[in-house]
């Protein structure tokens, strides 16, 4: 014992030195470590896709790109994709604005039900709408037969409708969040001064909402052009970039052409991401800072109310009916042919392992994502090192990058040693972590901006070292951001398809992929039943998580926004 003590003396002084060093430099060490993670799991996969797209059998080549622009087929897929993204974004924003306006400013009785309905699609896979549209408007759909409709669902129009319905909630969530924290006093003053409702919306509400709308638009556009479930199920022979990439990689092992399509898909996303950053510099906290203030329902002129109500109700009805028919289909033998009620689809347990895996992956992703997100937010706001804004940009870029591209990137980057991750469960979780990191980071950043640095300084003046300060002061204050990151990652990861579809392997299937496959093969009953099970389980998980966070004393509703 004495021996050990005498030995430990010189060590301890070294240890002390190390400790002081770590204590002083911890933020930088942490930043370096996090940056390394970002490079490996976000930048490296993208670079891998880029390299693949220019690497021919004999050195570098642009021949694959040449093929893209020469062949009408590929070029059409680009124009189709952009057109889809554009139409979709505009429609989603308009509908979401109407919905958000009514749920924050409209009659009280409408607020809650409209809100619940608009958020419903968030917990279902986006291609639920493709399934319901086939049931209703397919060549032998219920409505098609009932009204003798001649219009064909398969093609561009069908995809646009399905995608729009799928992404309304996303736009709604963000616009509603900004609208809620917008102080209604300004609008009320204008109203008292005699301005018309239309004028208020045009000159006050929308300009103040601009950052929120812009952000919602960016997110919807990127998600729309990258999410390929609806397009693959309803597209027929209409080419779109994302489903074509998927077919090329998964079906044909044509990695070169698949990579070219991916790179082309990234370009509009990057442009929009930078545009968004440029337009929003300096405007960021004008709307987020305010506390949500419930606004008194005031009289909305019929001139505004009727169109808003019409649009909102149409959207809400469409969402409700979609969920309804899918629920119905999961209990029907063969919907439309043999409408006998059966339990066989529900009792089909082939998908249970996949559902179990989905929950597991999403929970792991949520935990890691929330931790990394919180830490990143901390180093971005409090760190004082070169390249800070670069780290911020990279960590926020996750949601501007199409899921398909990240999925292919992971497949290319982590298929060979030393980073051999494919064929396991971690690659699925890590993929979700870095794709959905932005939300946790952003929630953390805005939380930290609200916390005065003086509290931390006071703590260290009183002799607490960095770890103690971080653990006792920063962490509790940032916990809501942690929870927001956790819940968002969990919810998004469990229903997302576009990236993980490239990474599933035998034994590590995911429910979202399983449902997509069933829908593509035409097994509507199984697809519907699995969707309903997944929705139910996500709901239970949400209630459970809500319960736990309440018990641990934090209110998640504080920061649900993206």
């Amino acid at each position, binding site marked *: 014992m004495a021996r050990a003590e005498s030995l430990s003396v010189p060590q301890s002084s070294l240890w002390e030195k190390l400790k002081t060093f770590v204590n002083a430099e911890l933020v930088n060490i942490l930043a370096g470590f996090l940056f390394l993670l970002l490079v490996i799991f976000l930048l490296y996969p993208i670079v891998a896709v880029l390299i693949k797209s220019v690497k021919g059998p004999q050195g570098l080549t642009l021949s694959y790109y040449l093929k893209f622009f020469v062949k009408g087929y590929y070029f059409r897929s680009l124009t189709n994709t952009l057109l889809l993204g554009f139409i979709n974004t505009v429609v989603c924003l308009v509908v979401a604005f109407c919905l958000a306006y009514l749920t924050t400013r409209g009659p009280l009785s409408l607020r809650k039900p409209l809100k619940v309905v608009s958020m419903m699609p968030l917990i279902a896979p986006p291609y639920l709408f493709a399934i319901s549209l086939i049931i209703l408007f*397919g060549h032998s759909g219920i409505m098609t037969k009932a009204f003798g409709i001649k219009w064909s669902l398969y093609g561009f129009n069908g995809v646009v409708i399905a995608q729009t319905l799928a992404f309304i909630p996303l736009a709604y969530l963000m616009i509603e969040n900004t609208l809620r924290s917008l102080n209604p006093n300004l609008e009320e003053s204008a109203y008292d001064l005699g301005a018309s409702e239309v004028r208020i919306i045009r000159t006050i509400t929308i300009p103040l909402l601009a950052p929120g709308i812009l952000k919602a638009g960016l997110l919807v556009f990127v998600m729309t052009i990258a999410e390929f479930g609806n397009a693959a199920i309803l597209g027929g*022979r209409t080419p779109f970039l994302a489903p074509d990439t998927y077919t090329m990689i998964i079906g044909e*092992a044509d990695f070169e052409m698949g990579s070219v399509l991916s790179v082309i898909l990234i370009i509009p996303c990057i442009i929009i991401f930078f545009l968004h950053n440029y337009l929003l510099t300096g405007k960021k906290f004008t709307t987020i800072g305010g506390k949500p203030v419930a606004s008194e329902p005031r009289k909305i002129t019929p001139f505004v109310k009727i169109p808003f109500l019409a649009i909102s109700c149409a959207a809400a009805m469409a969402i409700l009916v979609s969920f309804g028919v899918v629920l119905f289909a999961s209990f029907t*033998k063969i919907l439309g042919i043999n409408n006998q009620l059966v339990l066989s689809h529900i009792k089909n347990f082939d998908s249970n392992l996949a559902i179990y895996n989905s929950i597991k992956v999403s929970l792991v992703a949520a935990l890691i994502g929330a931790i990394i997100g919180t830490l990143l937010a901390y180093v971005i706001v409090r760190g004082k090192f070169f390249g800070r804004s670069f780290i911020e940009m990279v960590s926020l870029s996750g949601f501007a990058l199409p899921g398909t591209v990240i999925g292919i990137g992971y497949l290319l980057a982590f298929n060979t040693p030393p980073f051999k991750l494919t064929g396991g469960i971690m690659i699925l979780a890590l993929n979700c972590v870095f794709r959905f990191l932005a939300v946790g980071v952003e929630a953390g950043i805005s939380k930290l901006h609200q916390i005065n640095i003086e509290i931390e300084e006071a703590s260290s003046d009183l002799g607490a070292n960095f770890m103690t300060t971080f653990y006792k002061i920063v962490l509790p204050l940032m916990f809501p951001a942690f929870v927001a990151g956790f819940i968002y990652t969990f919810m998004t990861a469990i229903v997302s398809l576009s990236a993980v579809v490239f990474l599933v392997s035998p034994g590590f299937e995911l429910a979202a992929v399983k449902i997509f496959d069933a829908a593509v*093969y035409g097994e509507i009953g199984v697809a519907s039943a699995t969707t309903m099970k997944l929705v139910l389980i996500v709901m239970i998980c949400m209630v459970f998580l809500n319960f736990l966070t309440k018990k641990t004393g934090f209110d998640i509703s504080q920061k649900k926004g993206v």
Partner: protein
Amino acid sequence: MKGKFFWAVVMAMIFIAFILSDVQAQTVRAYMGLSPENNVKVVNFVKEKTGITILQTFQSFGEIEAKVKSEVPNFNADMVGGCGSPLAFMSKKSKWAVPYNSPAWTGISSEFADPDRYWFNMSNFTFVLVGNKDKLREMGLTLPKSWKELLDPKWKDQIVMPSPLSSGTANMMRYTFLALYGEEEGWKYMAALDKNIHHYTRSGNAPTDLVGRGEFLLGITSHENVKKRMDEGYPLIWSVPDEGTGYDGTFAFILAGTKVTDVCQKVIDAFGTQEFSKMMAELGYVTPRPAPNALFGDNPLKYVKLDLGWAADNRPKWNDMWKEKFRTEAK
């Protein structure tokens, strides 16, 4: 404060228990491409006879081929249990497969068991023409009797078939048409057929469901789910047109680098049994060991004369030609 901590610990413990809860039984990971439902049947058969759990993801033959090729040499599965001849032949040639002298496969013809025992053909499958009975009657049409009849403009946008790039069934259709009409005429036939095709599906079984539900009138499809769907009450009729049809195997082999070779070998043994052949024949497959066929009955099918080796060797070339011909202009 105490309550908070307690709940945080509960949460953490549940979480850790959940993450560590991986089942450790005798398992093998396999790429299987029969059909989603027939895959499950095979998995259940193996589980019942040997106690081995096969973890599988259903994929089309083309997708399995793409996956195996892209993963060389670090395969994410231990074996393949159901893929097309091109991948099986290539895996033997490139030594992605490891040979196994299975006692269960002795006495089986070289069509079903590789003489060098690299691959084992679980059974042959084939493609048929299906139609939606109700819709055809409604429109006063009948199921075509020959492949050529499909070129009639009245079927425009009413036919679905799988894509030969991703589906092994469609690859089989392609080499059958090329063998039937000769290469040049065969491509002309497919180009003419293309005008009537609504779209090409990923999987060879998808047309059965799409036609069964009445989304489309006719489908060229794998036979695999036809009987099952008719039994379930889908208004389907099927036929093999006068010119005959083609066939391909559903091949199984052990992938090099697996850590559970002995488990894979037991699975291969199970595939060689009479009982397995019996089960597959009940699903309509033509099996390595003779068994009564539930779909085709006693009448032997009329086959187009095929050389699977020739078809496998030409697959990459034909895939390029396919893309060249049918992916130039959007329809």
